[in-house]
């Protein structure tokens, strides 16, 4: 039993976040503004190798 999203190469984290985003978007306008704040992320990642940053910070949804 493999879920469709797993077969598509998504992890559960990504899958549940997509679901959460859809739920937030379907809220009523007065609640949506508040919920939109929870839909933000600013974290940037830099992979390191051999004690040095391997390449520039990547931004990914």
């Amino acid at each position, binding site marked *: *039993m*493999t*879920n469709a999203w*797993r077969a598509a190469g998504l*992890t*559960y*984290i*990504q899958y*549940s*976040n997509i679901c*959460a985003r859809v739920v937030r978007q379907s809220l009523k306008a007065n609640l949506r503004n508040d919920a939109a*704040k*929870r*839909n*933000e*992320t*600013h*974290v*940037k*990642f*830099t*992979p*390191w190798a*051999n*004690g*040095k*940053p391997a390449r520039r*910070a990547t931004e*990914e949804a």
Partner: protein
Amino acid sequence: MMMQRANILMPVAIEATFQSQPQRGMATLKAISIRLKSVKNIQKITQSMKMVSAAKYSRAERDLKAARPYGVGAQQFFEKTEIQSEDKTEPKKLLIAMTSDRGLCGAVHTGVARYIRNELAKDDSQTKLFCVGDKSRSILSRTYGKNILMVANEVGRLPPTFLDASKIAHEVLKTGYDFTEGQIVYNKFKSVVSYQLSTLPVYNAPTVEKSEKLALYDSLDSEIVQSYLEYSLASLIFYTMKEGACSEQSSRMTAMDNASKNAGEMIEKLTLTFNRTRQAVITRELIEIISGAAALN
């Protein structure tokens, strides 16, 4: 540790030089007033930083209350199944350092970094690091740069969201480093004035599936276990980020309060020296005038 931070802002050494200077001449009066002004400015800065972090702290504490169930719930699973890493022969460890980008907050970041350094000092060949926040990176990169797998920054400017946590969890899973046992190192918030360095264990799917007590849970297949582990990693990271953010703000509040107090002390002493010097200058001038007048007679 907090006091150390405060002392960097206001080196105590300056005082000593001023106490020996008044004999040297008039220039010191100017020098003292310049120094006085700069210390006053520093005090203003630290005071406003304290106010800002107090406001941020109250929000972080409110958020933390809401986030606690995430962490407690996720931990329950590991406690109930009594998972232990079996592969003792070749453990591949992963340490996740929960810090932020911002400094001036006492010893929250150094505490995390020190724990990791001690862990790495034991054995650094099989351990990798995932640094969340620039602070842990800057502390650890010099000695253990080779162990750093990934750095996440832009953490701590805004309160952490679950999306931030899930992105970090996603990166942890997709680094390609197949760890057998992981640890999240973070500061656990206890009260406004105290936090405690804590660790949370993280396991990979094969280790969990080998656990005997997993039968406590009904109808689990490897698919569900994998999904759950992914989600629980995100929850744990979210929870520890909130704990860390709350400890950081409370610690910054204390640190800035101390810094303002120290600045106040310095201002007092400098004002005293300033007034004494001014008095000495006036007295000397008077003596010069009077003795000059006396010589004329």
